[in-house]
């Protein structure tokens, strides 16, 4: 194994005859890539564990034969060759084998232009597949609000499985079956919407083909744009302005705010606004909430709530921590709510219906916008969510080139933003924005240096302490949900020292969201991040509290930050989602109205303690007593009272450690009282 010695002697190895220094690379694949040799891979990602399944990265190592370069640690003096005939032949056969087992409907695949398989087939010069094509006809999974799963395009590289498990700590999909029948599936082949997928879309980001793709909403947007009875407005998230350019071949991190606004106008949006305005609003609301909790010994640490994937994660796995979540809506939903409140007052709606469309770097935002709690009297705060890449495609459909467009300005009233609002696009950005507000509030005088470099960076879990007037603010910044585990554990065991914890699901934050244009450039994320920080500098104001349009908005439409109106419009509540579904099994249904429900828990613990027998006896009893008409019996999923199993509910009465006799007694009592 490779150990990094601190010897001053430079250690080297040879790649295709070139001597290269060993600088702590994990494997020889990384070394070759550093040397500019793009060894092909499907299953290698520097942020994921080494998997060794695609066999494309094979190289010939002197004395060791053909090896997968991802699995070989660099050793001094090693000599490897990356393009021998043998290596080329095996790579070609691997690609040919994959193509034989691929649903080659390429022209109609949304990943056609960014498909790794297609690219490698071309690179390897494959002009014919000599194997018999394998017909794949698995149904597509359209259940998710955020993603589409097409099993027929899966090459089983496992990138999605590892990303979901290793980076997000979710594991919503995994391998099932063996050998040629292998497939990547949600548990028990349920629909993606039925399992604990948090909609982050990381799986789609790492997918080399079109097996997992963001769910498109373009057609719905086109339909509304074409509808003369609708006024369609767009909001554009901070990260979009540093991502969209890549779709048109620009360098990652090109800032294209003005062109993007012009583009949206060009394809028919009536008004275009900046989500960063709502982000500034979030800073004030969340900042106030934080200071209130901080000063009044409220529930701390406070978790940010901008990332819908994180919110669903918390709702699913840690419902006891929900009081820690900021009650603030995410900037997307705040914008939607504010737009619906403000726009009809400040513009002439001509009796038309207002449609709010978000352009987001994110797939989870698609899911968020469709939550019941964000739909009021049938009107959603945000109607449609398209991704950065979808916007790019819409422009291309119209034959527009982003670079050719004359930059345009956002529309007024709810668009003006500060640098703090733009920072929401990167990991640590929400924390920095809130600090720019909270520190000024705590110290009671204007903040001079607005840069909090201690919260910036790339690490999955970062800690920082900011001292203001002798008061310590202890912060944690998480990107990648798996990294939240340590913080959550510390809260549960009472050792948590943080006051504020920012969580974003995507490593790197929203700039690297699954809605951004697909890229194989590992440096793209850093370049987009840099652009966000540059954009912060370029703006007139850096602190949300200085945003003049925001101040006016509060004055005209709200009763102050954190006030009653603000609470009604800008805050929300969370749902306990530990149970994805409550499917009770109806075993016997009474016919008369107002039957008495009997629920018997058949969860594992109750089952082991005899609930199944109890259920049978009860059904028999009801039948014998001729009560079938008056009661309905259901078997339920775990009642979460396993310590006192078996659990039975008769009407509203919960019977713990229930016996047959106790259940009968309760049944008689309740039926008796009903009869009276």
């Amino acid at each position, binding site marked *: 194994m490779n150990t990094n010695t601190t010897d001053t002697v430079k250690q080297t190895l040879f790649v295709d005859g070139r001597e290269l220094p060993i600088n702590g690379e994990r494997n020889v694949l990384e070394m070759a890539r550093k040397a500019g040799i793009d060894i092909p891979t499907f299953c290698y990602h520097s942020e994921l564990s080494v998997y060794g399944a695609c066999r494309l990265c094979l190289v010939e190592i002197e004395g060791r034969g053909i090896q997968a370069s991802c*699995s*070989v640690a660099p050793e001094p003096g090693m000599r490897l060759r990356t393009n021998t005939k043998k290596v080329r*032949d*095996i790579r070609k056969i691997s690609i040919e084998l994959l193509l034989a087992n691929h649903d080659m409907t390429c022209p109609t695949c949304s990943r056609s232009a960014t498909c790794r398989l297609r690219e490698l087939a071309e690179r390897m010069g494959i002009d014919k597949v000599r*194997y018999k094509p394998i017909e794949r006809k698995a149904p597509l999974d359209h259940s998710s609000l955020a993603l589409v799963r097409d099993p027929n395009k899966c090459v089983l590289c496992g990138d999605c499985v590892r990303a979901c498990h290793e980076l997000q700590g979710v594991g919503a999909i995994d391998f099932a079956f063996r*050998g040629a029948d292998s497939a990547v599936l949600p548990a028990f082949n349920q629909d993606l919407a039925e399992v604990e997928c948090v909609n982050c879309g990381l799986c789609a980001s790492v997918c080399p083909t079109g097996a997992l793709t963001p769910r498109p909403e373009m057609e719905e947007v086109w339909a509304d744009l074409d509808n003369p009875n609708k006024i369609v407005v767009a909001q554009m998230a901070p990260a979009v302005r540093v991502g969209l350019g890549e779709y048109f071949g620009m360098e990652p991190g090109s800032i294209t705010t003005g062109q993007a606004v012009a583009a949206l106008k060009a394809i028919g949006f009536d008004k275009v606004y900046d989500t960063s305005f709502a982000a500034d609003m979030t800073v004030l609301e969340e900042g106030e909430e934080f200071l209130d909790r901080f000063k009044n010994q409220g529930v701390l640490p406070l978790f940010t709530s901008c990332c819908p994937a994180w919110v669903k994660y918390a709702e699913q796995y840690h419902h006891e921590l929900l009081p820690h979540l900021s009650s603030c809506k995410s900037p997307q939903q705040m914008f939607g709510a504010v737009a619906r409140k403000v726009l009809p007052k400040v513009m002439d709606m001509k009796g038309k219906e207002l449609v709010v469309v978000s352009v987001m770097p994110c797939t989870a935002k698609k899911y968020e916008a469709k939550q019941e709690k964000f739909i009021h009297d049938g009107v959603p705060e945000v109607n449609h969510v398209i991704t950065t890449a979808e916007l790019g495609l819409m422009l291309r459909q119209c034959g527009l080139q982003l670079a050719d467009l004359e930059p345009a300005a956002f529309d007024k009233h709810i668009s003006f933003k500060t640098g703090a609002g733009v920072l929401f696009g990167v990991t640590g950005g929400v924390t920095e924005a809130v600090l720019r507000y909270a520190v000024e509030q705590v110290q009671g005088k204007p903040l001079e240096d607005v840069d909090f470099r201690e919260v910036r960076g790339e690490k999955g879990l970062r800690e920082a302490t900011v001292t203001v007037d002798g008061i310590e603010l202890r912060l944690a910044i998480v990107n990648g949900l798996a990294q939240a585990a340590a913080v959550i554990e510390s809260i549960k065991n009472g050792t948590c020292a943080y006051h504020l914890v920012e969580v974003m699901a995507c490593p790197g934050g929203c700039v690297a969201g699954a809605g951004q244009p697909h890229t194989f450039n590992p440096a793209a994320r850093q370049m987009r991040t840099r652009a966000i920080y540059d954009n912060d500098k370029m703006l007139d104001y850096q602190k949300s509290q200085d945003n003049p349009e925001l101040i006016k908005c509060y004055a005209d439409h709200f009763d102050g930050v954190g006030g009653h109106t603000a609470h009604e419009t800008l805050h929300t509540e969370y749902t306990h989602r530990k149970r994805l579904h409550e499917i009770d099994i109806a075993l016997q249904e009474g016919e008369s109205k107002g039957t008495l429900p009997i629920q018997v828990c058949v969860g594992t613990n109750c089952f082991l303690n005899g609930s199944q027998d109890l259920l049978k006896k009860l059904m028999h009893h009801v039948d014998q007593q001729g009560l079938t008409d008056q009661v309905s019996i259901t078997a339920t999923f775990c009642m979460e009272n396993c310590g006192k199993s078996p659990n039975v509910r008769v009407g509203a009465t919960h019977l713990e450690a229930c016996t047959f006799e106790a259940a009968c007694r309760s049944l008689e009592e309740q039926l008796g009282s009903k009869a009276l």
Partner: protein
Amino acid sequence: MNTSVMTDRPGLKEASDIFQQRISRVEHRIVICAGTGCVAGGALAVRDAFVRELTALGLEVATNLHADGALDSDKPISVYLSKSGCQGFCQMGPLVTLEPEGILYTRVTPEDVPEIVDVSLVKKSVVERLLYRHPQTGEQCKGKDTIPFYQRQERRVLKECGMLDPGDLYEYINHGGYEAARRALCDISDADICNEILQSGLRGRGGGGFPTGRKWDLTRIQPGDQKYVICNGDEGDPGAFMDRSVMEGNPHAVIEGMVIAAKAIGAQEGYIYVRMEYPLAIRRLQEAMDQAREFGALGENIFNSGFSFELHIMEGAGAFVCGEETALIASIEGKRGMPMPKPPFPAQSGLWGKPTLINNVETLASVPLILRYGPEQFRAQGTEKSPGTKTFALTGHVANTGLIEVPFGATLREIVYEIGGGVTDNAGNVTDRPFKAVQIGGPSGGCLVAEHLDLPLDFDSLGSVGAMVGSGGLVVMNDQTCMISVARFFMQFARNESCGKCVLCREGTRQMLALLDDIIAGEGTLETLEILEQTAEAVKIGSLCGLGKTAPNPVLSTLRYFRKEYEAHVIDKHCPAGVCPALCTPVIIDELCTGCGLCKRKCPVEAISGERKEVHHIDQEKCIKCGVCLESCRFDAIVQGAAQ
């Protein structure tokens, strides 16, 4: 632990004495083979019949030498009815051995029991009809020492399997059992143990043949307090049952081997990974572990040495790939059984990320023998680079099938013609049918042909001809075997058992199977052969784990030795062995046809025409190549002809 309890336990010497004292009172011992084969053949019913019959005669019968009470007297025991592990000659089971007479009765049924008791125990004679009869000479063999199947073997690891009662710890100890473990724990250093194993030249019996002593020493020198020993009992090759027999028949040898290994590398915990399809092995191992723990040979402070070792059984779900060590480890950890790239090797980072020693059942069962009798004696058998003996599961077209053990270096000729009793026809009779090939090493192995009959079987010489010892399956094939069909059989197995992780194995085995299907269906061309060979090479070199790397071996070795047969399939559209229906064009030889009309009546598609007593004719357009006419002709007038 309470030391007074410790001193209450008998030591190895006492246990041995107790067994001696009890067995010396036994007048007759009837050993009933209770291996899976014999049990399936009704061995337990035979045993019950013996109990009934002997009790009815008023004889003192014991089925357990160590039962409480009555046996502690000095009273003689007329008959001790004991079970043994697999004796290897499964084809002839259920097997019943009478001691001290040394009579072996074969294919015994409960109905035979009264006669055996009457003739052999009462009248002191032999039931001749139940003796093994030499298939060619018809000569009767009274005991194992006169049966060629046993005579030509060198049973070391399997020796105790067929003799001892696997449920009797004291009998194992009386045979010298656990002395090696005691010595390893109390008398010699960890490095010395590794050294003795290294000296013996023992190589892994699971297929790879890596020097066991080196593996042990590599694991021993890894830093860390927490290490594991794993016994790989996931024997998955179709037809192989060597490991199962050892676990069933001599579970204490496996446990003792593991205790020694644990001491050598410094592990406190171990797992025996057994497939769930081996319920008897699991039960016998569990019982043996309980006995060993109670005796103080396993668990806390073994033999008062201060060394503790705990052992668990992990039941596998039967995936072939879990025999691959990294997949096996993943399976124990509760993960999907898929291999991981190596390095890191298990010795560096194995179970739960800790240094782990993983050895095959047969390897571990060999360990006590080495420490008991010394490395020199181990080396006395076998060849210079492959010392010792190897068990094989012998099957296919040979007269005697079953479990055998021979020294490395034995030739195929010895195994096929002496132990196996010669090549048989498809009906199982030894005729003059020529030997065609053996498939050695199961789906990972390759074939050996007539030119290899005198090749010494060992790790290196097998490797040099494109085959491998593998886990030890030996399938003998006569000339009526189509090698393409054989390759297809193993390829289908590999395709089904591939874990699906790496592209080359998952897709490659699937496509190789499709290509073989094409050839068998008569749709192959020379290009098919070319693609097949290229794919096989790529899968062999490029796959992630041993399963994939060896899966193409049956294809590659049949291509190497039987290319003409492949070419006949794709060029002449003819299966020389007459096996592939699509390539078996029946042709009537005019001179031999008597015009009896039988074939005409049997033909399901009315493809045969001809007047009575006249030469018949087959309409090749109508013929579906089902082969019924070939089977029906009583004059051998219909033969496989090449396609037109």
